[in-house]
């Protein structure tokens, strides 16, 4: 960390402090919590791009898988639904997996007709899968569809869900990596984009899994509920002693608790990432990024390394996704949009400075703060513009009506300005 980094981090810290003073500490902490999660996502993406030059535009998919992990681990199991169709679903899924593996095996056993053989295996397998799976799905979804209609989860503490979310994402990354990384790294981008869309489509439409677009709400929390604090005599006594209002104190306490856990995760990951980067492993990754052909000729297994870093980065995104779902308290597949979950993270990485872990963290904090605050900032700007205009004119009315769109516009302007004056990011890789 050099002087520049310290200054920039102080600056961002001041933004949060300023938010606390001008708006409220609750707002500031809300933004901070999500900023911590964003920083973790940016860290994951930075590993892939900044360390290894892998262009992942499927972040959204991994984040969503992390969210799925949170649901599958922490929600109580739905025994009725499981009894109704659980077995069939398990059988169906196994059949599906067997089909794919079978197809791959047939493909490997090269022969003149292998194209047709693979097609036949897939065709038969697909219909068998549907035949086994569909009744199970229908049975599960029929169990009280308005409020559940899914298999539920394991009912374990939600913190456990975070690594599981990471594992789910890692599993998906492994599959993508196995197919796409073997080719050439460029196609990874397209593959990830596609897989992300497929993951979201699956989450939206497989109601038996996590209720699809009907959303899972009311996920358990790793921290106390504000209401419980507000009803706890000891809590009220403690805070009133210090002269705080119980409601504000409870909301702040909960947010601080989240912030604490998130910060521990972030700092831990940051330490791991930094240690790795500064070691021969980091040197090897830089060499691979610099020149794949040459690294391969120098005995480095480029494909394996790519796979490793791709899985790691994706797992971190999945972990962050599970954390985010926990913070939201719900899984809402309809909210996963590439703009928000893929491109915004990219902006964080690039603005922060790709290749530099601290840069990604800084980018995560700054861009998320902006993403939230450009709304009031844009409104302020628009008020300034229209202040001089006479009341009731068409233009003024029109401009004030459009104030919501200042949000993206302001975001765009800031991005362009940062890129112009700090093209390698705020904290460039040295």
């Amino acid at each position, binding site marked *: 960390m050099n002087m520049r980094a310290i200054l920039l981090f102080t600056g961002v810290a001041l933004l949060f402090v300023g938010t606390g003073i001008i708006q409220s500490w609750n707002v500031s902490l809300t933004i901070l919590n999500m900023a911590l999660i964003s920083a973790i996502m940016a860290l994951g993406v930075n590993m892939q791009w900044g360390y290894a030059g892998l262009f992942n535009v499927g972040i959204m998919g991994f984040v969503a898988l992390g969210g799925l992990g949170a649901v599958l681990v922490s929600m109580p199991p739905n025994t009725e639904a499981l009894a109704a169709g659980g077995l069939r679903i398990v059988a169906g899924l196994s059949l599906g997996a067997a089909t794919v593996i079978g197809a791959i095996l047939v493909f490997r056993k090269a022969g003149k007709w292998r194209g047709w053989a693979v097609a036949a295996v897939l065709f038969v397998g697909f219909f068998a899968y549907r035949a086994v799976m569909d009744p199970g799905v229908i049975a599960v979804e029929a169990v009280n569809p308005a409020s559940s209609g899914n298999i539920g989860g394991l009912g374990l503490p939600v913190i456990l869900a975070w690594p599981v979310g990471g594992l789910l994402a890692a599993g998906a990354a492994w599959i993508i990596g196995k197919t796409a990384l073997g080719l050439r790294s460029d196609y990874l981008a397209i593959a990830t984009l596609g897989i992300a869309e497929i993951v979201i489509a699956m989450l939206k439409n497989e109601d038996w899994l996590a209720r699809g677009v009907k959303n899972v709400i009311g996920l358990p929390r790793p921290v106390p509920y504000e209401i419980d604090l507000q009803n706890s005599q000891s809590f009220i006594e403690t805070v009133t002693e210090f002269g705080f209002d119980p409601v504000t104190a409870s909301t702040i306490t909960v947010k601080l608790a989240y912030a604490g856990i998130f910060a521990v995760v972030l700092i831990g990951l940051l330490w791991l990432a930094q240690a790795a980067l500064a070691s021969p492993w980091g040197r090897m990754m830089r060499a691979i990024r610099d020149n794949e052909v040459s690294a391969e000729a120098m005995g480095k297994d480029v494909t394996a390394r790519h796979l490793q870093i791709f899985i790691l980065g994706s797992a971190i995104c999945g972990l962050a996704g599970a954390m985010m779902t926990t913070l939201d308290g719900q899984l809402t597949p309809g909210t996963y949009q590439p703009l928000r979950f893929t491109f915004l993270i990219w902006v964080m990485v690039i603005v922060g400075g790709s290749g530099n872990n601290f840069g990604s963290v800084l980018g995560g904090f700054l861009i998320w703060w902006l993403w939230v605050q450009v709304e009031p900032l844009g409104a302020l700007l628009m008020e300034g513009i229209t202040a001089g205009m006479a009341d009731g004119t068409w233009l003024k009315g029109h401009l004030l009506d459009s104030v919501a769109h200042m*949000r993206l516009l302001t975001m*765009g302007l800031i991005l362009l300005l940062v890129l112009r004056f700090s093209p390698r990011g705020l904290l460039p890789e040295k």
Partner: protein
Amino acid sequence: MDFLNALVALANFVIVPALAYGSQLALGALGVTLIYGILRFSNFAHGDTMAFGTMATILATWAMQSAGISFGVLPTALLALPIGIAATGLLLLGTDRLVYKFYRVKKAKPVIFVIASLGVMFVMNGIVRFIIGVDDQQFADGERFLITARDFRTMTGLEEGLAIKTTQVITVAVAIIVVAILFWFLNKTRTGKSMRAYSDNEDLALLSGINPERVVMYTWLIVGGLATIAGVLYGLDKSFKPFTYFQLLLPIFAAAIVGGLGSPVGAIAGGFVIAFAEVTITYPLKKLLGYLLPDSLAPDGLVQLLSTDYKFAVSFVILIIVLLFRPTGLFKGKSV
């Protein structure tokens, strides 16, 4: 007879709509591919450029309509198209001057252009909504149908109808014409060749006396034209809504990539591949089989491979499969 019915049903619900949609995607993908090929980055602002061009055309259309100008059976918007293209061209040149030129002079790496285009996307997004708002706008006028399903049925006595919309015909026709012109331009004219030369080897183009700024200017103008045409044709066929145009970005990119980024022929092919994939894979075969098979064998269920929920996912699966077997897209994308 049954066979004809099956054929007509297929044409009406699969072939005709997919052709029109494919042409729209293809025109959009052409723009993306040209920028990738010549200016060498993926332009994420393309969807919003299309929205801007369409908006400009709509405003011009409204002005014409209120002045009593119309284009007979054809939509007035076609008359207004040149104005829209001009406005979009100006916008793109302005964007280039304000944003991209700086990086070009600095010889910035492509990824910086990509991220800058994200910024431009945000800004254009706001501008369009500022000017025309977020609502649906219908601006098609003139004759809507070449032939309606009902007319077709009475005409032929078949059970199934075949509807062909004017806009569908215009879309496909314009797509063919535009692609033909673009081909001729790139391969036969001096300017077109200089653009290809620039995209092939920038330094050498400079040494041959080709003015890079002119090439860039022509590229943006052509892209402006393509984006506006694509946007207007799409808007005529469906309707104009800024958010939808932003969402078009993904299928357009998918089309450009399947075809091979940087290859104009690929963009066309990609557009149709994506369109047909979306429409065919989710099309239930119940009716077709009902016509084609003897009654005793006619299926009860829908005989649908995948539900329509997955249509978008399907186009990406196809994309990935294509790439696994043809790693640079159908038409070996690289440069123009």
